[in-house]
């Protein structure tokens, strides 16, 4: 029988922003103006300080780029490893999400193209609606609703999806497992995950959990989005990301500005932080606030998760055992299905000058939203699942995404405000994927055929 379709996947915000104190990188422009004058000791000292400042900014930048590379790489590795070994996630069961009701197994290419465009349109509309709902909820101070929503989403992800994942892994490796041990494993994994993410827990464990849930979500997307739809969605999402974060009327920008006006953190975030996030996750915000802390708090935001409840398309006879009443009940309980994307980014205006923080430097770091993790991994996973030339394409996409991330972080260091993390990476990833698949592969094949080594 077909496996049950997953019900919901929470999403978290994405986006990249930096917490280092703004240090205007001043160039070494003092000396050239002093033509003909021997540089005095004073300008030299100033120059050295400026050099140090610049160096510090760059050092932060490089260190934190590396700190983000590791989790992004880990997430992608997990996704690719699962795709390659567990057949479930690449097998086409005929199930689809309700967001993508148009099938792609059509007779003509034109029909397929139309279907995938329609699917992508539906999905992006859902996402936009969800983002707007979230912004409205936030504007009208319905914090409890948002928190409950987030809580339920992560609950579902940590318990239900990991249960399915474990089941498929055990099936793949032909291991017998009894219900008792399974219950213990899933219960432990889920509860400790909830504690680490929503309450207090060791940083490494929290980071590990965030990586794992991002990987789980990416796997769900890879399984349930048909091919052309997936690529289209990735492209459209990047554009939406760009618009939502940078345009003055963008919903995410409004969200963050409202948060800053009210001078409060949005809500417990699902953001991956390269350093400790004690400012965010502390339940007691009335800690003695240093300047940095107060400024820091509104920065830790993510917007909730989008819980998209993928119920199989009702016309499809294969509904995986979920009757329509159950589906309706789920929707009723979980609330409207949310988009994934609103998870992402936030814009924040970094204050122009901040007093240096008394905390040590490790406190601040770059944050990346989980939505970005999910889409990066989805791109690489899809590439490894469907590309004809096995590892070349996967590796090419992987490198492309990391390059994009590097560039995004570089822009972050330059502009010092929150930026959308998706567009550059996804754009590069898509370009590399299609180029490698369609140009490099035949090239390599031809070369191998003629035994010509370059």
């Amino acid at each position, binding site marked *: 029988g077909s496996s049950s379709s997953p019900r919901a996947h929470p999403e978290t915000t994405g986006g990249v922003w930096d917490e280092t104190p703004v240090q205007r990188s001043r160039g070494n422009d003092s000396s050239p103006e002093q033509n003909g004058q021997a540089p005095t000791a004073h300008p030299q000292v100033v120059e050295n300080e400026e050099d140090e400042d610049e160096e510090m900014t760059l050092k932060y930048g490089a260190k934190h780029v590396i700190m983000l590379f590791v989790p992004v790489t880990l997430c992608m590795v997990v996704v690719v490893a699962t795709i390659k070994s567990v057949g479930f996630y690449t097998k086409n069961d005929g199930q689809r999400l309700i967001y993508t009701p148009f099938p792609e197994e059509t007779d003509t290419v034109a029909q397929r193209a139309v279907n995938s465009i329609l699917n992508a349109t539906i999905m992006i509309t859902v996402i936009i609606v969800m983002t707007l709902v979230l912004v409205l909820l936030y504007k009208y101070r319905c914090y409890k609703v948002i928190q409950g929503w987030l809580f339920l989403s992560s609950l579902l992800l940590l318990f239900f999806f990991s249960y399915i994942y474990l089941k498929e892994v*055990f099936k793949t490796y032909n291991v*017998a497992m009894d219900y008792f041990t*399974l219950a213990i494993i899933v219960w432990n994994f889920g509860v400790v995950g909830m*504690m680490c993410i929503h309450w207090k827990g060791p*940083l490494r464990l929290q980071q590990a959990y965030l990586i794992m849930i991002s990987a789980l979500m990416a796997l769900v997307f890879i399984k349930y989005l048909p091919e052309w739809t997936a690529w289209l969605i990735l492209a459209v999402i990047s554009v939406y990301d760009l618009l939502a974060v940078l345009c003055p009327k963008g919903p995410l920008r409004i969200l963050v500005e409202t948060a800053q006006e009210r001078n409060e953190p949005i809500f417990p975030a699902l953001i991956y932080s390269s350093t400790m996030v004690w400012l965010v996750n502390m339940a007691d915000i009335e800690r003695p606030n240093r300047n940095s802390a107060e400024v820091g708090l509104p920065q830790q935001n993510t917007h909730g998760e989008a819980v998209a409840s993928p119920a199989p398309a009702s016309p499809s006879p294969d509904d995986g055992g979920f009757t329509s009443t159950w589906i309706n009940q789920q929707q009723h309980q979980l609330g409207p299905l949310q988009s994934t994307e609103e998870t992402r980014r936030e814009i924040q205006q970094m204050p122009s000058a901040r007093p240096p923080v008394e905390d040590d430097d490790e*406190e601040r770091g770059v944050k990346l939203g989980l939505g970005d993790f999910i889409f990066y991994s989805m791109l690489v996973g899809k590439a490894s699942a469907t590309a004809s030339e096995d590892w070349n394409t996967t590796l090419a996409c992987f490198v492309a995404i990391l390059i994009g991330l590097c560039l995004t972080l570089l822009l972050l260091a330059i502009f010092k405000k929150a930026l959308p993390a998706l567009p550059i990476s996804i754009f590069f990833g898509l370009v590399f994927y299609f180029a490698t698949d369609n140009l490099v592969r035949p090239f390599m094949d031809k070369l191998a055929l003629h035994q010509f080594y370059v």
Partner: protein
Amino acid sequence: MNLERLPNEEKLGLCRKYYLCGFACLPFLWLVNVVWFFREAFRKPAYTEQTQMKTYVKRSALGLLFWFTVLTTWITIFQHFRAQWGAVGDYLSFTIPLGTP
């Protein structure tokens, strides 16, 4: 969350909460408790709350050991005798491997 930043009472409170919650069939939580608070409880120079923290860490470790033995024995028994139990074995199984045992 960085333990360095917390005052000692809060560390103790956190250790205690992790210890108590572990009784809900959560050996993993006890493991986290032991690993996370080990250095705090045993390697740091003494402070008032540390004695209490030590008891919590020790008890978490004991509970962890207990669960570990229980689970290992159960898993060994199950894996070994599953095929022989026939219908009961199938009923208990979540995934049944293919092929002959």
